[in-house]
């Protein structure tokens, strides 16, 4: 497929919006944000780290802290606990759209038991297309995290696009060195309601 181009100019815009949920039983509103996350596009090498409390990228020098909650490399996801980190993070994927997930479950959070037995299985959140050789995040799959510091967050992966080191999108046959994810997430520092 030498001529397939990714039409995604609108993805280039970094949309960061802060809205607040006004609910009576919600003392602290969850912080909802969107963020671009540029990660290592190779199957080997280091993971790029993300922290919900920080609201974005956490440098790899902080990999042995609780500042990050999950990490990504190509289409692999690790969480900061168990075999992957010193935190207490866990994750589960709910087959509901982002907005429909209003409460983080109390239990059911998975963690990485080894470098190959990861909490997040590929088929849970993306579809690989053997014809276009692209992978598309499945709409309506919401990640719910218990963060490294025992707070809660929900997240959806809006897009996953091939990019170069500077975050510019590339088209086949140019091989991407990075994957540019657009994430939407809500962080709740107090309780399990979003």
């Amino acid at each position, binding site marked *: *497929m*030498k*001529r*397939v*181009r990714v*039409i*995604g100019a*609108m*993805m280039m815009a970094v*949309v960061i919006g802060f809205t607040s949920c006004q609910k009576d039983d919600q003392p602290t509103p969850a912080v909802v944000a*969107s963020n671009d996350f540029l990660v290592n596009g*190779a*199957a*080997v090498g280091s993971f790029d780290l993300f922290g919900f409390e920080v609201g974005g990228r956490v440098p790899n020098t902080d990999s042995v802290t609780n500042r990050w909650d999950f990490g990504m490399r*190509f289409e*692999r996801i690790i969480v900061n606990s168990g075999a992957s980190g010193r935190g207490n993070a866990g994750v589960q994927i709910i*087959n509901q*759209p*982002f*907005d429909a997930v209003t409460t983080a479950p109390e239990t059911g959070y998975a963690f990485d038991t080894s470098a*190959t*037995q990861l909490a997040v299985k*590929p*088929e849970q*959140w*993306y*579809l690989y*297309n*053997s014809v*276009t050789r*692209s992978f*598309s*995040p*499945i*709409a*309506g*799959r919401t990640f719910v995290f218990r963060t490294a510091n025992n707070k809660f967050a929900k997240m*959806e992966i*809006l*897009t996953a696009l091939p990019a170069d080191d500077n975050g510019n999108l590339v088209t086949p*046959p*140019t*091989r991407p060195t990075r994957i540019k994810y*657009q994430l*939407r997430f809500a962080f709740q520092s107090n309780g399990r309601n979003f």
Partner: protein
Amino acid sequence: MMQRMRERIGLWTLACLLSQFSFAQKTKVDTLDGRSDDVVITATRTERKLTNIAVPAIVVGQKQILQSGSLRLNDILQEQTGLFVTSGTGSGAVGGGVFGNGIQLQGLSADYTMILLDGEPLIGRQGGVMDLSRFAVGNIRKIEIIKGPASSLYGSEAMGGVINIITEPLSGKQTQVGARYGSFATQDYHISGSSANEKNQLYYFLNRNSSAGYELDKNTPEKTLDPFYNYTAQLKYTHKFNRNTRLTLNNRYFYGKQESFYAINSREINVGGHGTTNDFTINPVLHYQFSEKIKNRLSLVASGFHFVQDLDSLNSKANYYYDSFRQNFWRAENQTDFQLGNHLLTVGGGYTLQSVLTTRYREQKFQHIWHAFVQDEWKLKENISLIAGLRYDNNTDFASRLSPKFAFHWQLNEKWTINSSIGAGFKAPDFRQLYLSFVNNAADGYSIFGASEFSIAELQRQQSIGLIAQILPAAFAIQELQPEISQGFNFAIQFRPKAGWKAEVNVFRNDINNLINFIPVATNNNGSSVFSYINVNRAFTQGLEGSLDIKFSKYWNLSAGYQFLQTADKQILGAVKAGEVFGRDREGAPARLMRRSDYSGLLNRSAHMANARLFWDHTPSGWMASLRAIYRSRWGVIDRDGNGFANRPDEFAEGMLHVNMTVSKRIKENWMVQFGVNNLLNQTNAMFMPNMPGTNWFTTLTYTFKHKNK
């Protein structure tokens, strides 16, 4: 009666017009000679009048091919009702395209259409698709298109239908030379001729076709279609030993070469080379008639297909990519027809040996297949026939298959006819699904193994030495691959109010089971996946097609066709109905629940396809003209939100309307000049229809020399 029918049928039986410029007048002989446009052999493997067959069929005659100015098989097929030519990716002209120009029939993809040349299967599918641009149409007498499953007669691949290219020459002694020049430096030359006496008939055809290619997207460094040239040669010889015995030797050879240039990780072309295709067929057929009522046909086929793509880095001259695919096919088949009262019994069987050797398989692979078939056509009454058929296919490498078919033909009166059929189709697992042994070292190291190359024991061995980290539960579901199977149903009503007028409506439904897909079966120690093939998916296609032929004056013909199509992956549709599937209305938008109305079916299918063709043939002056319009509504091309189907604007290709025209003039008895313009509205889509160039023109000059009959 027979005379009347002959007048009514088809657009192209204006035999006298045809003969004026290319064929001797006297060659129009008995209707059931297999050459006439109103005779179909593909539907029942016996010669039948088009009005008397029970399955949906289209016959495209030489006159239509010629008047449309078609050069290659895909040119003419894309103008037929309900047929859609799928896109190649730029190197299709020599059969090397990643997908090639395949044909979609009744919504079934190109993998499921069988292509025959003079009744024998053609080989050389790449990625499941037979590239139609490999076949010149200058030597074609007619094309028969049978829709719906026909595995009861033809076995594997005849799931969506059968296209039979018939090159039977007309008798008589003549020589024809032709030359064409057109846009993109397209050049096409041919010489053909036939010679015949009481006992012998010889026909030859030589063709050279080339193009400088074209560019639809100036933002990509690569051309959309790379330059190519190819040669086709055909030699057909028939010897009549006596009244009852006839031997035909049919040989075809094709050679094509196409440039292939890529910009890999660069804005400039930096990798280049060629794709080369060689294919040949040698096909002796012995017809022997024991008596008027018992006829026998023995056919032997030897054919080969070899495609090589060889690319080098333009800077370092080092080899960048090399791929070779070599397939051989041998078949012996016998068919006997018994006329027993009002039953016509057809019994046959055969043996096939196929081999394939490619850079992506571990070793040369062989397949042995034997098959037997029986069909009874029972003429209950003069106007009612019942057809029942059954075929058994046995293969060494996958499960065997039994394919039945029932068909019913009822001519209510002179104007109305009802046809209905129900039949089974199957497609054997193809070579890559069985034998692929591919490790992608360039990407993340994923690997794919065909079902025959896969074993749990091997995975466990690799796990014990640390290559494989985890064997997934799905691995234990991998077993002997079953053929992909379908059941098809067709019901048609035909109305023929008067000679040259015909209206037909056909409803169809195809249920497809056991579709083969690949699934991850294990995880390598570097985190990449191991894949293998399994029968999982189920789908259906259903719809309605209508066609209209109107000969509204002596010189004018109008034909129109329409197909409405619905398709679905049953699993996805079920999940949509259950409210489990979400989608995004645009990239990055929040996910929302998909409703039934959001589900657009299988990718690459248009809900509406229509065509209208107007032909004018003014015999007195020698002028001819054609104006043809082909429309298809939008079709899903990609899934960007992971729900497995197209549901938002950027997942569809826009609908297209193509308008083509020709003007021709016969000069004296021997010359013909033709001028044509294709794609008058300049509708293109570089990404999803790279095989469709923008507006282009051509002009053709043909000279026919008819040798005097003694």
